[in-house]
């Protein structure tokens, strides 16, 4: 068998594993109890590894907020000093089977969604999705949501989940994709389907009425609540595709606001990075592109498993958020088929004539065609202390894919 055949076979296997993924929400539990390999004072963050000094404003802001939230510091200045001194251990989410939106910070007391991929038995975690602290806002107001999540919403959802013994997400995801979600910037259908399920679960659970009402209000009014679940599902689906010898399939894409990074199956946990790109998008009133930070967050895990901008053609509703026309959206979704191993047999889109979503990004095809994955995403401020300022579309930098291809050829002694 020549190298090309070996690659094809390995990619088929990666594709099979990606498609077989069967995410089930099994728990909502404090990160300190479930994230593997961490102890003491730690915070994990989005994107490839990065030290405090090189972090972007929003990520710094989020870390400051997370430090105050944990009670390790009282003021932003105190928090900054701790972080600068390296007294808090910083690690990327991806190193601990976790993902987080935008700055993506997770700390020990923060509950995370716990997803189990029933097809392979692996677990993945994601923090709650909100619109303030994860964008770098560390004001007391911004931290309120984190505290409520820790003290009320998280524990309530946990109890309800235990009552029903977990929740299968594949049916929700399949339906939501047909209802116009792309599960990255638009998760409104999935969120309400999820809310339906959880409302019933909570009703079946013995709960203080106050907690029930508060959590019910949270779950039923949070259009993006499912993003945390789709991200954790994405991570749980993508991880089994790691470490397949000869496979050129991408197993993670993420950004920390400074760098864009990706992993490739055959190349294990090695990060291939390039400067994070600027997002092309629409801004909330009062903000412009001049104050925008660069691309940030682990949420590109959704594109890695074929959702997000890869299925934007089926989610025209998203366009009012990120700009563009329905025709362009369809064209994006079709274009992505040119760089993936194949299309998903189950996740199908009515708008594309029930064709499956493109899945299994192949770095060879990306470099060959120059077509890089498209990602739809939110935009954070370039400085710490602000909430979400906009949303838009961004392309992964080609450079990472080239670097990965070179590393691949070295590993297998190709060329020269």
């Amino acid at each position: 068998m020549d190298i090309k055949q070996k690659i094809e076979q390995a990619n088929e296997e990666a594709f099979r594993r990606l498609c077989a993924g069967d995410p089930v929400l099994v728990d909502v539990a404090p990160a300190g109890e479930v994230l593997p390999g961490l102890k003491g004072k730690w915070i994990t963050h989005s994107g490839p590894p990065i030290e405090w000094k090189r972090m972007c404003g929003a990520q710094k802001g989020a870390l400051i907020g997370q430090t105050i939230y944990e009670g390790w510091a009282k003021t932003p200045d105190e928090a900054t000093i701790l972080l600068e001194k390296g007294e808090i251990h910083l690690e990327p989410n991806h190193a601990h089977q976790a993902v987080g939106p935008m700055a993506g910070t997770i700390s020990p007391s923060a509950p995370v969604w716990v997803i189990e991929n029933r097809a392979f038995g692996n677990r993945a975690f994601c923090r709650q999705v909100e619109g303030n602290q994860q964008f770098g806002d560390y004001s007391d107001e911004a931290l309120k949501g984190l505290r409520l999540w820790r003290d009320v919403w998280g524990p309530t959802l946990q109890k309800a989940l235990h009552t029903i013994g977990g929740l299968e997400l594949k049916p929700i995801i399949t339906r939501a994709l047909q209802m116009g979600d792309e599960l990255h910037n638009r998760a409104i259908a999935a969120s309400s389907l999820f809310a339906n399920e959880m409302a019933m679960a909570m009703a079946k659970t013995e709960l203080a009425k106050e907690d029930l009402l508060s959590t019910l209000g949270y779950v039923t009014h949070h259009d993006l609540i499912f993003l945390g679940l789709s991200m954790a599902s994405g991570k749980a689906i993508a991880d089994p595709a790691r470490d397949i010898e000869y496979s050129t399939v991408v197993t993670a894409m993420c950004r920390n606001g400074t760098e864009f990074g990706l992993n490739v199956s055959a190349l294990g946990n090695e990060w291939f990075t390039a400067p994070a790109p600027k997002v092309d998008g629409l801004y909330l009133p009062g903000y412009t592109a001049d104050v925008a930070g660069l691309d940030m967050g682990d949420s590109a895990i959704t594109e890695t498993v074929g959702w997000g901008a890869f299925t934007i053609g089926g989610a025209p509703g998203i366009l009012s958020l990120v700009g563009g026309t329905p025709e362009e959206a369809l064209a994006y979704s079709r274009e992505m088929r040119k760089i993936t191993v194949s299309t998903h047999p189950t996740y199908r889109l009515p708008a594309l004539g029930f064709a499956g979503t493109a899945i299994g990004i192949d770095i060879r095809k990306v470099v060959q065609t120059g077509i890089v994955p498209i990602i739809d995403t939110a935009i954070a401020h370039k400085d710490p202390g602000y909430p979400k300022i906009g949303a838009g579309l961004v392309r992964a930098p080609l450079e990472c894919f080239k670097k990965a291809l070179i590393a691949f050829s070295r590993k297998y002694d190709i060329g020269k």
Partner: protein
Amino acid sequence: MNNSPKSFPRFYPRLIGSTAYEWLSSAPEQGKVLAVVTNCIYLVNSDDKLVWLANKKTPLHTRSIQLAGALPGLVPNDPFRIEDQELVFPNGVVVNPKNAEDWRPADFSNEHLLGLPEIYRKSREIYSHLAQLQPPGFGSFITPILASIEDEGISSQPQFNDPVLQFAWPAVHSIARAAAAQDVRGIYARVNELVGLGSGLTPSGDDFLGGLFFGLHILNQRFPSQFQLNKTEISRFLMQIRSCTNLISGTLLGDLAGGLGPAPLHAFIQNLLIPESQESPFEHALALAFIGHSTGWDILTGLLSGLLWTRPEANRATHGRLPQRVLVETVSC
């Protein structure tokens, strides 16, 4: 490229529909360009006979002359003449069919067919899938039609935002119920209300009726013993509606009623009627659905109404008399 009028190229079509072929080979004739739309140029000769030049984005039809590439630059009212089977326009455009193949819908008259109850079941299944795609135009009627035919007692009075749909629904509803009751008079009672109704080049009403009569025509042709259709009544109806809609839409409607339509429609009906087709009828229905703005959907919905005729007797009895509305016998136009 130089734009001087003397330098227009010749066009060599690849496929020519059988009707268009006859049109080209008939005695020397002349005519004019009737309309130029995105993927199609409609030509009409002195007898008001219609054919069109189309590119590959337009589905095949026995009236189409399919060019492999871009359409020539013609504008409405450009005259043409036919010389030695070549279409010659005064600005130098020449369409030369010398190497073209003749196209007509595939013949499946020798194929073994499903029984009517199976056809009914299969149609319902496909159409309930189709309805989930939130079809535009008369396609919005698929769900209420299916609901009102099978679920007894539900008096369907759905509301539509589009005034055209709101206006059309009572007639469509009544026609569908009449078809399901195998009541041919009931069908005719209200077709006049739909002729020429709706927006666009081929009004939705015409496409709906086209689909309806196409379905009836095919059923009559393939199940002559179980299904009688009075041909003269249909042709009388066609004569009557000629002046109630535009030439293009009226011609297409007439063709459909005679069992000729766009290629995906033929593929769809064929795969629907035969027991084990290689191809899924659903795929062909989708191909049909994407014709024009809502044209494909309108035809599909009309066809559904026609196919309701295959509903087994057992399900039919309870309907009894249909609500008769005032007959719109003739339309003043």
